[in-house]
């Protein structure tokens, strides 16, 4: 393992003279667009409109909007400067557990911009978009093969939208059986993503929490105890949010089915098992797949994502519109399921085509073998981090094999005065984005690390060396390294209380005065 790398001495702010511009080295301050833009400036030259008699009735706008503009060079500088205040996966290891920050191949970006995909309208004649439909069908085939499921709904826009889709299909299936009035409870483990209970509640289900066993997984017995004629479904993440494989998943599926319920699997962590295990073999009924996690479409600072949902035979008929049907040589997009059991429509058009292109490009580049290797390398990397830090940090459920992410808690920090938050912020000064913290809720002071398959061994070793050094430093009582962190980032800690007590959510002319 590497020694701790040479790090520049922390900056002593007293010794740094104030600069005329307010900038520090390459870290440049940048005002708001509204402070530098001008109401008469534009970066787009547009020919004068043809003289016509307007057809706007009495609804032409008379008041100014107040939108400032910038010329093109100013626009470039403004947003390039803003970009430099962000961390990114391209710049460094981004160990956010449960978020899967892996490499985003640029070939995928190039392909998504092919005119034949990016410049095609969702409502132009289907005869002029057969390639797009073929692409969607190919993606659907890959997803069904990888999961051993019978149908795919492609239209969900993100993971949470996929959850909604899956749970809508389940609610519809229950209603079709005439059990709509009685089955109104969804079982959800404590460790679940917040989107699970939020989705269930959105559809009027009440949530019954299933406790986890001391080893961090859900026992079939606990599920059986919670089951009853009022249960519509279970929502279970596998591998779960503690980074552990749900060992009794097959038994859980059988128990849920025996009780007349459905099994919704949160597929956020599919990237640990793609190509190695098929969720359909566990006995699930529906699962969303975050293309922006498992299949590496870029996270883009919060989106867009895509959340196709694979469905079992029992739910396939309830899939939303639109869906694709093969009609001889050509493909047909069915946009209206008049008379069929489809539960309806989730979004205006057909889903996140731009993400489909990238995800399928990722799949083809990997092939079935490469996808399995990606999953295995992700699991290997997480276990390597676990094995390399287990003597200095603690794990809530003991030291055991994890999947693609490893969960630590803050037991090892007790008595040091350093919190999980402090530790995370200190990582920033070492050049790393922090791991996911305080999630899942079942671990006290949780630190969830997901290194992904994109890191070299040298990169992992440096990361481990840094975390070891920080851990030892915390135990040695070097408080300023933690409580004052970050000191070397574009900003020190931000006052979130102030932001929430007096919300300022937009620029206003008077506030600028």
């Amino acid at each position, binding site marked *: 393992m590497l020694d701790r790398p040479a790090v520049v001495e922390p900056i002593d702010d007293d010794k740094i003279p104030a600069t005329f511009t307010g900038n520090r080295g390459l870290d440049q301050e940048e005002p708001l667009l509204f402070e530098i*833009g001008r109401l008469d400036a534009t970066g787009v030259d547009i020919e004068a409109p043809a003289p016509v008699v307007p057809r706007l009735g009495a609804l032409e706008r008379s008041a100014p909007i107040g939108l400032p503009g910038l010329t093109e060079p100013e626009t470039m500088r403004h947003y390039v400067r803003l970009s430099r205040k962000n961390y990114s996966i391209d710049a460094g290891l981004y160990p956010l557990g449960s978020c899967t920050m892996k490499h985003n191949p640029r070939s995928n970006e190039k392909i998504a911009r092919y005119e034949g995909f990016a410049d095609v309208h969702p409502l132009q004649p289907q005869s002029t978009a057969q390639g797009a439909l073929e692409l969607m069908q190919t993606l659907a085939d890959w997803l069904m093969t990888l999961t051993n499921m019978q149908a795919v709904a492609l239209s969900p826009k993100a993971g949470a939208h996929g959850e909604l889709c899956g749970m809508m299909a389940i609610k519809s299936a229950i209603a079709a059986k005439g059990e709509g009035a009685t089955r109104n409870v969804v079982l959800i483990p404590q460790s679940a*993503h917040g989107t699970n209970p939020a989705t269930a509640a959105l559809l009027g289900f009440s949530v019954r929490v299933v406790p986890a066993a001391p080893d961090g997984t859900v026992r079939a017995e606990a599920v059986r105890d919670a089951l009853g004629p009022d249960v519509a479904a279970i929502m279970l993440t596998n591998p779960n949010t503690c980074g552990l494989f749900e060992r009794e998943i097959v038994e859980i599926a059988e128990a849920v089915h025996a009780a007349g319920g459905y099994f919704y699997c949160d597929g956020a962590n599919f990237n640990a098992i793609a190509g190695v295990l098929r969720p359909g073999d566990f006995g699930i009924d529906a699962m969303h797949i975050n293309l922006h996690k498992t299949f590496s479409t870029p996270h883009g600072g919060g989106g867009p994502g895509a959340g196709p949902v694979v469905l079992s035979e029992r739910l396939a008929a309830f899939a939303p519109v639109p869906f694709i049907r093969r009609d001889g040589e050509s493909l047909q997009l069915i946009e209206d399921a008049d008379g069929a059991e489809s539960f309806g429509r989730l979004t205006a058009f057909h889903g996140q085509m731009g993400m489909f292109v990238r995800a399928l490009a990722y799949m083809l580049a990997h092939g079935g073998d490469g996808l*399995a290797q990606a999953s295995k390398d992700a699991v290997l990397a997480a276990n390597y981090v676990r094995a390399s830090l287990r003597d200095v940090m603690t794990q809530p459920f003991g030291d055991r094999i994890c999947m693609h992410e490893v969960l630590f808690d803050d037991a090892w920090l007790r008595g040091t005065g350093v919190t999980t938050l402090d530790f995370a912020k200190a990582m920033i000064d070492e050049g790393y984005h922090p791991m996911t913290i305080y999630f899942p809720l079942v671990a006290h002071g949780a630190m969830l690390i997901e290194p992904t398959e994109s890191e070299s061994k040298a990169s992992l070793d440096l990361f481990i060396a840094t975390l070891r050094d920080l851990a030892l430093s915390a135990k040695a009582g070097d408080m300023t390294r933690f409580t004052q962190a970050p000191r070397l980032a574009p900003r020190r800690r931000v006052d979130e209380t102030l932001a929430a007590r007096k919300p300022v959510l*937009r620029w206003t002319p008077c506030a600028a005065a």
Partner: protein
Amino acid sequence: MRYHPLSEADRSAMLATIGVPAIEALYADAPAETLLKTPLDLPKGKSELDVERFFSRLAARNLPASRAPFFVGAGAYKHHIPASVDHLIQRSEFLTSYTPYQPEISQGTLQYLFEFQTQVALLTGMEVANASMYDGSTATAEAVLMAHRLTKRRKALLSGGLHPHYAEVVRTISRLAEDEVETMAPDIRAVENVIAEIDDTLSCVVVQTPDVFGNLRDLTKIAEACHKNGALLVAVFTEAVSLGLVKSPGAMGADIVVGEGQSIGNTLNFGGPYVGLFATRHEFLRQTPGRLAGESVDADGRRSYVLTLSTREQHIRRDKATSNICTNSGLCALAFTIHLTLLGEVGLTRLARVNHANAVLLAQMLADVPRVEVLNETFFNEFTLRVEGDAATLVEKMAARGVLAGVPVSRLLPGARLDDLLIVASTEVNTDEDRAAFVAALKESL
């Protein structure tokens, strides 16, 4: 595999550290019968060149908007996007960063979201806006759910001018959430009497302007009627460029304004990803779905931005959250913001005028074509054409002549017996030649 840095030697060394003999041992918790014994029936990995070849072949089977005289709209619009927009959104720091949960190293994203929220608020004439939704249709559904929470009523009224797909999205979630919805009949000429339908059982009325048939609607009186009955007015738009020329929904009294932001900064993408815009009054902030970027200061007192009011959201509030949304449309919002920054008020106004003028020119030409009729009194850049015969067949015939003519209403409202209607959009990309080609292909195809 070019994306996997670990060598076999690395893997062996790592396994030794972990203390297991093989990677397979790490899957020991999976039920043995579920472990794949043979590889899946999927192709082997391909080189970058081969992957690109595969997609080039597929792309060649689609007709891109820029390769034909193009008049398709109805919720997504072809506009020219400056090259700098796509260059900027592909910067690593924007493209490959996560949701800005660590504000100290995410000020770039947080500041542009703050700018985006301000631009959306200004454009819609509202007090506050969120940091984006998936698209216009899901934003509309979220607006209805928010109105239910605010009014503690559970019934929405949808105008017959609302995009039929948007209406379907609202009806789907409402039916499954066991809320009520009433949808008015398709209203081609914007003559429906919404006000007569408003009573004190409604949580909200949803009206689109320009509506799906292209008509502009004055919302002022509907807003008054809503407020008299304790209901909210949800105003919807699908063409954000229209706001450069048309009175804002906020100025007409809307309580929640939602819309599709695709037409500023974002390509057509066969339907997604797009960016949903969501704006409302300050007093409704606590019931607003989605992320919000707010202003604060850091420990040194420097102005900073941070995600705020998170207690509304699913990761904290779980089953009591205002929405289940997590991932949104961050990068599409950035494209929107950069394009709108480049346009500025003068650029947007001029762009809107060019769009309007081009649509007026086309409508004038069509007025002279026998057996077709422009139905709209008013419109922005889109109008509805009544043709003799079946509009869907006409569109196919015109496509065969290389012209993408518009959206037959029957595609949006199958079974509504509106088969002779065609929605035609015209933006700044259309030239005199395009219009001439449209009219020629139309005459030949009728």
